[in-house]
């Protein structure tokens, strides 16, 4: 049986797609057969960040409508043979997704895959609800600012009451906090909430802190999940997150201001 992970947030633009691409690649690189699904019907973003946009023939909605088989629609990643991408449709609207259709696809994928990563659209509407409905684990991506934290809290409420697990009275979805675009310097200046502030509001298990990093934009511009940029601190933090999720004991990093050595000062790598 597969483990279904939803990457969700409530608020838009906080790093869900970046995170979905990174952790799906991370899990696959660890040898687990992984599928990553774009639930953002109408926008289509994941395939760009995964660098497979020119290989899209069929999409999620085609499969739901029976116009293509899963096998036809899944795109195999060129860098890692354990990773498959199910792209969203750009030409349909959000109503094309149905709970029944999504359920069927996830069930079929579950037979073959170890992990299924669902990249949720922003908001708390249909698309986001369907992305989280069947989840076993929720990665709640939050930026260190009040509105993002609030929306995450709202999303957590929905996870606890409107998911399949909640409706059927099963064990609750496991919720993890991923604090993204974190900048210790700005926390120090009082411009951002600290890890403690966010934890105080959300009381959630912290899976990792992803630092604000230029490497994220560079990576997505070139269609490479940032986790593959092993030099970048964002890439490293996603590697830590995957390892922690898989049960490894990895100390947290990127929470405190980096003490730059002579080398760092000279070359100022970020």
């Amino acid at each position, binding site marked *: 049986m597969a483990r279904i992970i939803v990457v969700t947030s409530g608020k838009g633009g906080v790093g869900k797609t970046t995170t979905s691409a990174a952790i799906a690649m991370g899990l696959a690189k660890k040898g687990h057969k992984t599928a990553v699904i774009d639930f953002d019907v109408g926008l289509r973003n994941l395939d760009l960040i995964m660098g497979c946009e020119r290989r899209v023939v069929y999409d999620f909605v085609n499969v739901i409508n029976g116009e293509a088989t899963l096998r036809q629609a899944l795109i195999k990643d060129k860098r890692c043979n354990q990773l498959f991408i199910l792209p969203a449709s750009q030409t349909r609207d959000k109503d094309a997704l149905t709970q029944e259709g999504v359920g069927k696809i996830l069930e079929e994928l579950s037979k073959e895959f170890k992990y299924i990563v669902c990249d949720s659209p922003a908001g708390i509407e249909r698309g986001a609800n369907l992305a989280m409905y069947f989840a076993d684990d929720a990665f709640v991506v939050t930026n260190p600012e009040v509105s993002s934290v609030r929306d995450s809290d709202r999303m957590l*409420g929905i996870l606890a009451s409107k998911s399949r697990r909640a409706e059927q009275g099963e064990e609750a979805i496991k919720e993890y906090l991923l604090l993204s675009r974190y900048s210790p310097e700005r926390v120090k200046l009082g411009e951002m909430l600290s890890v403690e502030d966010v934890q105080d509001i959300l009381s959630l298990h912290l899976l990792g802190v992803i630092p604000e990093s230029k490497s994220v934009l560079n990576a997505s511009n070139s269609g490479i999940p940032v986790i593959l940029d092993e030099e970048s601190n964002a890439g490293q933090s996603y590697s830590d997150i995957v390892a922690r999720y898989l049960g490894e004991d990895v100390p947290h990093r990127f929470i405190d201001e980096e003490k730059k050595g002579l080398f760092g000062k000279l070359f100022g790598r970020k």
Partner: protein
Amino acid sequence: MSTDTEAPIYTKSALEFKSSSFSSPVLVIHTTELKQITHQLKEKIAQAPEFFKNSPVLIDLQHCNDDEHPIDLGQLITTLHAEKLFPIGISSANEDQKLIAIKYHIPVHTIRGTHSDISTTKSVSTQNKPQEGTEKTKDGTINAIENMLISHPVRSGQRIYAKGDLTILSHVSAGAEVMAEGNIHVYGALRGRALAGVQGNPESRIFCSALQAELVSIAGHYKTSEDLDKLEQHQPTQISLQDQALIINNL
């Protein structure tokens, strides 16, 4: 789920009459001066717009009908509608007012004597026959089924209602609402709304580890975050009702 009230209920037969109770704010009118009423109503609503938006209200006329000139009920109803409040009942109306109420499709309640199915949050319900809550405390036994224990944080957008005491082992987020007919205990920060004694029990209290609430209410007497800001407490706090006023003190 008990934490969500939006789940649709499907039954085999198309409809069914059930006896149930719900709570609604009671608007006690103290004057027949409509201008004054309108002005103060606007002020109150501005303090907690979300709380009042499209809210049902029960109009209680017992304190304004002693005057020789009874209040113009038609005008009052129009005023309430303009403020997006929906009167769902009237109590202590005189015969003329009763006719007007019926004309506006608003049920007429006789609070004394017959018992209505509507239990209310404010002073009116204290005149009702003893509430379940008070009966329970009288003989000193606590019915475990009526009390509710929540061991996870109550998140923004969630609402919880307990028929007895409500104990929350975590925090209550901003944007969340917890209600109990008895006491409310929050073993974390109270950042949302907490309404204790919602069936009118003035003896009920609210306890929390830190008070940063948006609204607290006991038996319908409430304070909003505007009043509470000055009183924000970062230590264990108790809220009780004394002489119709909320008393907030450290534990």
